[in-house]
């Protein structure tokens, strides 16, 4: 079974402006999914310092912060800033918000604390939020933390195969769900646990 969550439309014929599309998948499940719509009821994460590396060695910087929210399909599609239509060989970003931003006070836009990605009882952005229900358990992952040793922000570097088409960045949820089922169903504060799950999630992104 291959399930692409809240699929946003990808127009592969659109060649003039390269775009980046985030997507999440659950593949060939060993988890018994009782109700597909509830396995993942919420999936939001921050993508910051997004850059495209071109084949001639240029680095194209995009907006500093994006909030990817799978309940809002338009947030999954990012227009690349590539005015000279250079060929892209890699995409890199941080999953989450860095320490400096975390200690620099209130910001607007994607970082506005009304977005539901900021803790109130303790300062800090929630880098990654995923909620839902597996076989018989609700799970809540609110992963964040900016101060050592609980800094949860992760760097992601991915190769881009076809440099002309839109870049599809995929987060396979299968591994994460397995991990959640086996160990952690409730993670909602900065901790070593949050850091290790964040590492796992960051390393599972791939491009197509």
């Amino acid at each position, binding site marked *: 079974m291959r399930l692409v969550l809240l699929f946003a439309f990808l127009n592969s014929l659109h060649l003039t402006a390269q775009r980046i599309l985030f997507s999440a998948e659950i593949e060939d499940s060993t988890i018994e999914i009782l109700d597909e719509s509830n396995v993942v009821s919420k999936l939001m994460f921050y993508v910051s310092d997004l850059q495209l590396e071109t084949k001639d060695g240029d680095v194209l910087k995009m907006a500093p912060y994006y909030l990817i929210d799978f309940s809002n399909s338009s947030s999954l599609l990012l227009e690349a800033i590539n005015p000279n239509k250079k060929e892209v060989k890699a995409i890199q970003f941080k999953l989450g918000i860095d320490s400096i931003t975390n200690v620099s*006070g209130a910001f607007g836009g994607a970082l506005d604390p009304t977005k539901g990605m900021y803790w109130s009882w303790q300062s800090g952005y929630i880098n990654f939020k995923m909620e839902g229900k597996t076989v018989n358990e609700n799970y809540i992952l609110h992963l964040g933390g900016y101060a050592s040793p609980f800094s949860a922000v992760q760097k992601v570097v991915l190769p881009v195969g076809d440099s002309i088409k839109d870049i599809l960045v995929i987060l396979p949820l299968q591994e994460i769900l397995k991990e959640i089922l086996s160990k952690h169903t409730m993670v909602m504060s900065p901790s070593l646990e949050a850091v290790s799950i964040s590492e796992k999630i960051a390393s599972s992104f791939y491009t197509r």
Partner: protein
Amino acid sequence: MAKNLLAFLAVVIFLFSFREARKVLFPKPSYFPKPEYNFKNNPLDSNAIKLGRYLFFDPVLSKDSTISCASCHSPFNAFAHTDHSLSHGINDTIGRRNAPTLFNLAWQNLFMWDGAINHLDFQALAPLSSPAEMGESLNHVLQKINKQTFYEKAFKAAFDSNEISGERFLKALSQFQLTLISANSKYDRVRLEKEQFTEQEKRGYLLFSQNCVSCHIEPLFSSYEFESNFLPLNAFLNDNGRVEVTLNEKDSMKFKVPSLRNLSFSFPYMHDGRFTKLNEVLNHYTDSTVQAQFLKSINKSPIYLSGDEKVDLIAFLLTLNDKEFVFNPKHRFPKELLTKTKE
């Protein structure tokens, strides 16, 4: 040529007026250190300060519109809460900690007794959403005030646009709180050579300098670091302090060092408000069991004070009361809020 010169002068005057405006809105005493707050991200503006003051005194911030920031942070108590040892929230809920004083906030990086909040801008989020305090959510408060023309006008005046965002709401609250500068106590006037200490106050100052200053650093009278106060854990409150944030055992039972300014207005004392008199605090720190704990800790020596010395020390501590700050009409409930209810 003359045109260029005129343009240049205009720019100079503009920049100068910007600096002057900051000086008027934020009169930093010459002997205070550089503020920690980054004003570049939130430049002070008289209309934004006004808006922040409205929000600070408006109970609309709480779920049932009964509790405002000022409920636990009264200007007449140096923005602490005198009647209660622990903070008092909606539906008569009682919190876990003693509401701290609010002044000289621009010189502080970490807030709350355990430092859970890392920036003044975000401080308000915690009481706003705590079920034992205001029991609200930022989004719902914004929804409520979005419907009020009073706030529509106030936000427009402060930010030149109608958008009411979380960022603006929090920054306006910061603006008002940044203007709460306490720097006109007798101590300050002595420092500026406008007044002199009495002989007793001088003796007290010497005792202070020998025993207290390592944590209560002048002129703010706090290091704003986290230290053990050697109070035994209150099993009912089970408050372990800083360790709850850092999860580092060495921070167990450490609490943020409070400023000693305005002590006469801000009792009860300590993180759980267990002492109502300064004498009790001094008796605690000179208790033999606490002296033994001081001996065990690094860089701290025990405090030994005779009865007379305690009296002298308190005489000095009372010179840190800043009546002008506590009774400043600019810090009080803004009457404009009353016009809001008539809408």
